[in-house]
């Protein structure tokens, strides 16, 4: 619309300024703090600190739980996406009503509510007891954290998968059947590959928040289980070591960047 690029620049300039000051400069701050010590001299100590056993452990545990949560989210979301797409529940209204609505109940409250549900004498065990089934001990274990992550991030997996499924022309599926593929072959060779972009964006949107959360692990892990997010949070709020906190954040960002590159590459592939 703007053939005149100077005009376009003028209209976009507030945004450019904003992005520079509040996106790029702050990231530079993290780099600065992460690569210096309190006296201001350059050091890699804050990054190498990830090798300390307690940091490595919290990172590995966070990776493990995030991967498990992402996989569970995917396994739950894909069939749901297929059901929704098949039944043409495209009247976005329903989807929003079901999956956006809970977001209006505060994220922390929702997570907090799981404490009530999962506690040893909580609602879930109450029901199990009533049914004379063995009760389960979940609260304050990694399993509880995984439940919390899956619960909070599931909508971010469902949305893109549903969207990519809904975009597939019925006739493309019919074509595969027509060319001799049975239902399983059609799914594996056509449906699944066609939804790869949706899957990747869903995975990104679940994996990163799961990897970096500290609130869910604090609440459902009983402060017993330290994830990398908790360690970083504590460096800022408890032990007051911004340099170490920033250094560990840089490590965290490496994982995020890898994820971004992967999704950008697949997006480009999709575009061409």
């Amino acid at each position, binding site marked *: 619309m703007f053939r005149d690029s100077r005009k376009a620049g003028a209209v976009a300039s507030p945004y450019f300024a904003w992005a520079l000051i509040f996106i790029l400069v702050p990231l530079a701050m993290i780099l600065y703090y992460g690569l210096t010590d309190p006296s201001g001299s350059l050091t890699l100590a804050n990054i190498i600190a990830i090798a300390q056993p307690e940091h490595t452990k919290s990172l590995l545990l966070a990776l493990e739980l995030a991967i498990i949560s992402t996989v569970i989210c995917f396994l739950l979301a894909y069939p749901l996406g297929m059901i929704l797409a098949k039944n043409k529940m495209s009247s976005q209204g329903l989807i929003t009503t079901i999956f956006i609505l809970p977001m209006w109940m505060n994220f922390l409250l929702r997570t907090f509510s799981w404490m009530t549900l999962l506690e040893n004498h909580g609602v879930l065990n109450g029901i199990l007891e009533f049914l004379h089934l063995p009760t389960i001990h979940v609260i304050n274990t990694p399993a509880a954290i995984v439940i919390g992550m899956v619960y909070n991030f599931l909508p971010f997996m469902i949305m893109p998968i549903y969207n990519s499924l809904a975009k597939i*022309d019925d*006739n*493309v599926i*019919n*074509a*595969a*059947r*027509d*060319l*001799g*593929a*049975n239902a399983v*072959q059609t799914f594996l*060779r*056509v449906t699944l*590959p*066609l939804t*790869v972009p949706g899957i990747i964006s869903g995975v990104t949107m679940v994996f990163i928040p799961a990897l970096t959360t500290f609130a869910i692990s604090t609440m459902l892990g009983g402060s017993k289980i330290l994830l990398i997010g908790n360690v970083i949070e504590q460096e800022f709020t408890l032990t007051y070591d911004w340099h170490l906190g920033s250094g560990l954040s840089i490590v965290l960002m490496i994982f995020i960047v890898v994820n971004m590159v992967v999704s950008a590459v697949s997006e480009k592939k999709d575009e*061409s």
Partner: protein
Amino acid sequence: MSKELISLSHISKSYDGQLILDDLNLVIHENEFMTLLGPSGCGKTTTLRIIGGFETPDQGKVIFDGQDITALAPNKRQLNTVFQKYALFTHMDIADNIAFGLRIKNKTDQYIKDKIQYALKLVNLEGYEHRMPDSLSGGQQQRIAIARAIVNEPKVLLLDEPLGALDLKLRQDMQYELIRLKKELGITFIYVTHDQEEALTMSDHIVVMNQGYIQQEGTPEDIYNEPENAFVADFIGDSNIITATMVKDELVRILGHEFPCVDKGFGTEKPVDVVIRPEDVELVPRGQGAIPGVVSHIIFKGVHYEMEVQAGGFEWLVHSTKESPVGTEVDIRVDPFNIQVMNKPASEDEQALGVEEA
């Protein structure tokens, strides 16, 4: 005529309580180019999808080569489909698209390679193996869709409005291309379209459908020259459809003027419809024809002039190579063998299938 390949008997199908096909019977012979022609919603696509196996009829049977395939899954049928808007697999390159069916059947790599070459040559797209579908034009995508279907050596190729998304020039080129392909492959084509010109150009056998019923079957010439009812007449080409009275055999009264004709057996003083193609209406100087009229409109169409003539209280559509300026006083004349007499719809039901709806 050659042997029966597919027969549909007493097929009914409805969605949400709405009847789409009602007791449809149809026979398709080996090696013919058959076209299902009709306006949208006439049931032609549903018929095709029932043959393809994407729909199951509520009632009736589909017999293929002597076997009942009504409940057979689409992947088990010996026919392939070319879909509306091509339905190519956008995540695969052209070669993989074409090889899809062959890989499912576990053909050898060499066989698949040869087949891809053969198919691409057949559709004039050699060298496109490693392009992605999105980088091809509509016409090219269409050819790939055809190539993808025919490498499986189906006995029948189903084509669902394959040219619908193409522009006029390309559509005409593809029509010839399809005729050529049909000849080279020597298999049966079942073709669905709403475009009468396409149907007339390519088909051996046309089935005109409306509102779930077959209106008329026959060769393109039959359909064009001797429409059996007003719907067919109106749908196939331009025509003047006029309510008339059959005075007796070989004499019909149109707009108060009697015309000799060649039709017999309608009875005497019976209301009928007559169809007169615009190119069959002759404009002659006043006093030399049957009905006097005045030219009210004229446009030049290249091959001929298209004129509207007010005569006998009817607006006649006339095609002629001779120009008659607006206001010219003329007479209308029609040769007896150019008057096609049709029965009026007998019941309200039949009425519903008639012209008004089209």
